[in-house]
């Protein structure tokens, strides 16, 4: 019994530290985000600033305020960055792993080469790629070495956007997306014969879709149209991020591929499956859990991305802005601490949305074992 108490006491400092540094600070940050810290310049940088409670005003401003258009673009940027970065790293990582799995000569060398960027910091990667992506140098003049004309893509300096949509349509699109997802859940529930789940998902999906096509079309967040889209300047950032992280997914997939029992592959062969069919129906499904883990890890890296963009494009450049950058800019340059805190909370919610279900499922698995 004494040992049990000792054990608990040994763990206690860490528990306390995490309680303060993680949960306590999140709480305090939440409080700051509900105040007016930064609105009054005389208080913003005072040694002991007086704060007043203003409720959700900061959040409201971020989503509907005139000047915070930059925040909204940064959210759009973040979503596109996350999607392409995850897609790129998973895709390239899988291809690399599949290639290495075939045991080419010099496998060890290739593995080392593909993985080494993982050892670098995002700051180093950003500095390198900033130089590599100079519009009139670097990658763009590479073809001239072979007597070809240079590329002209302006990389980080472009302001072009594609897939532009009106921010006012956001409620509609959100309701549509969630509604359709629920519809899919309902369909699955139907196939699995889960009556209760079918009923509830069908109901909520119906409500959302009806709302989307009636009120949703006329609910406007802003009194004027505000276009946002995929900022092409992000392409360079995504490229650099994929360069750094695809070795990681390769390592994961390679471990997964090597872990597939030979008998399973043999069985597929005996059944007359072609190589492609084996990949499609045997190997990829077996790699699904790895894909999920990788998605969680990459996803939360993407949502937190800061240093890479700081090093590649600086804080001032809106086309590559993400909320983490904008938060730093607002708080530590514009003295808008409360609004910065609000962005921090929003980021946390976003990450929690991805991570908590994963943590819970992992924990359940553990308990079941």
């Amino acid at each position: 019994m004494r040992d049990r108490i000792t054990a608990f006491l040994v763990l206690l400092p860490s528990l306390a530290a995490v309680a303060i540094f993680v949960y306590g600070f999140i709480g305090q940050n939440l409080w700051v985000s509900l105040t007016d810290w930064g609105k009054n310049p005389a208080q913003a940088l005072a040694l002991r600033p007086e704060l007043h409670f203003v409720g959700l005003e900061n959040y409201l401003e971020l989503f509907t305020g005139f000047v915070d258009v930059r925040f909204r673009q940064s959210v759009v940027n973040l979503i596109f960055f996350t999607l392409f970065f995850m897609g790129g790293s998973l895709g390239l990582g899988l291809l690399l792993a599949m290639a290495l799995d075939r045991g080419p000569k010099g496998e060890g060398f290739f593995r080392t080469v593909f993985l080494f960027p993982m050892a670098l910091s995002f700051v180093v990667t950003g500095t390198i790629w900033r130089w590599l992506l100079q519009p009139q140098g670097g990658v763009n003049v590479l073809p001239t070495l072979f007597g070809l004309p240079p590329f002209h893509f302006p990389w980080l300096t472009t302001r072009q956007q594609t897939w532009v949509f009106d921010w006012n349509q956001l409620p509609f699109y959100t309701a549509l997306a969630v509604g359709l997802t629920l519809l899919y859940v309902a369909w699955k529930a139907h196939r699995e014969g889960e009556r209760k789940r079918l009923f509830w998902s069908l109901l909520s999906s119906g409500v959302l879709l009806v709302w989307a096509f009636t009120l949703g079309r006329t609910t406007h967040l802003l009194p004027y149209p505000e276009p946002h889209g995929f900022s092409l300047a992000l392409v360079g950032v995504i490229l650099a991020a994929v360069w750094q992280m695809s070795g990681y997914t390769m390592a994961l997939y390679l471990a997964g591929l090597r872990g597939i029992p030979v008998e399973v592959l043999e069985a597929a062969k005996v059944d007359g499956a072609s190589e492609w069919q084996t990949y499609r129906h045997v190997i990829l499904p077996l790699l699904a859990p790895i894909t999920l883990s990788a998605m969680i890890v990459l996803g939360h890296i993407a949502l937190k991305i800061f240093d890479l963009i700081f090093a590649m494009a600086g804080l001032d450049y809106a086309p590559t802005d993400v909320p983490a950058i904008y938060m730093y800019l607002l708080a530590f340059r514009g003295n808008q601490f409360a609004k910065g805190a609000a962005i921090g909370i929003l980021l946390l919610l976003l990450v929690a949305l991805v991570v908590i279900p994963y943590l819970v499922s992992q924990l359940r698995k553990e308990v079941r074992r």
Partner: protein
Amino acid sequence: MGRFFLHAFLLLATLFFLLPVYLVILTALKEPAKITLDTVWHWPEPVYWESFHIAWEAFRPKFQNSVVLALSATALSALVGALNGYVLAKWPFRGSNLLFALMLFGMFIPYQSILIPLFQFVKAIGLYGTLWGLILVHVVYGIPIVTLIFKNYYSEIPDELVEAARIDGAGFFGIFRHVILPLSAPAFVVVAIWQFTQIWNEFLFAVTLTRPESQPITVALAQLAGGEAVKWNLPMAGAILAALPTLLVYIFLGRYFLRGLLAGSVKG
């Protein structure tokens, strides 16, 4: 045919991964006046080593900061992680699993969401602008991952060993000292490499919590590269210096490095 494509693909991928490195070295070895955009890929003529010298002079204090920071934070964090992992794996109590999960969440939070309070806290305890403040912060936010790695590792050690030692009359620390610790070397290596790399490469805390004297190298590099009239030989030489320690770790201890990478994700 398949082999041909395989090798062509691998070659292409190798180029994708190595060309940036080639350009970095090339640029670092050029005289500043000779760096022009249309000749970036040309070999430096003559080779100019001075950039490394200048960059090293400029970075040496920051480099030292990074060394002190990464080594001490790593050591502390490994110690904390070993003890935590030992408790959670071998002395679980009611609710310990839940506490562990709550702890793990700390690994994933975006640090922007605690940055302002953290900043105020570090300032309040008088550690703002010092290396010690940064070390403390890294040790604390490292708790989840190091605990995870040690817990997973210690779970593989048979309970019978602990049980046997207990019957022999060993207590909590005795078991740790004589049974667990001798078996822990691989976990320590994994944690040390992981934490060292993470802390060496970290930027956000470093840029928010330090003053110029206590800045680690990542901050210095970002400021140099984002600075005025970028002559690219210096940032490139600086990037090489900033990357060298973690690269060396990776090259010589790659196996353990990989294990650290995988620790956070493929478990169970």
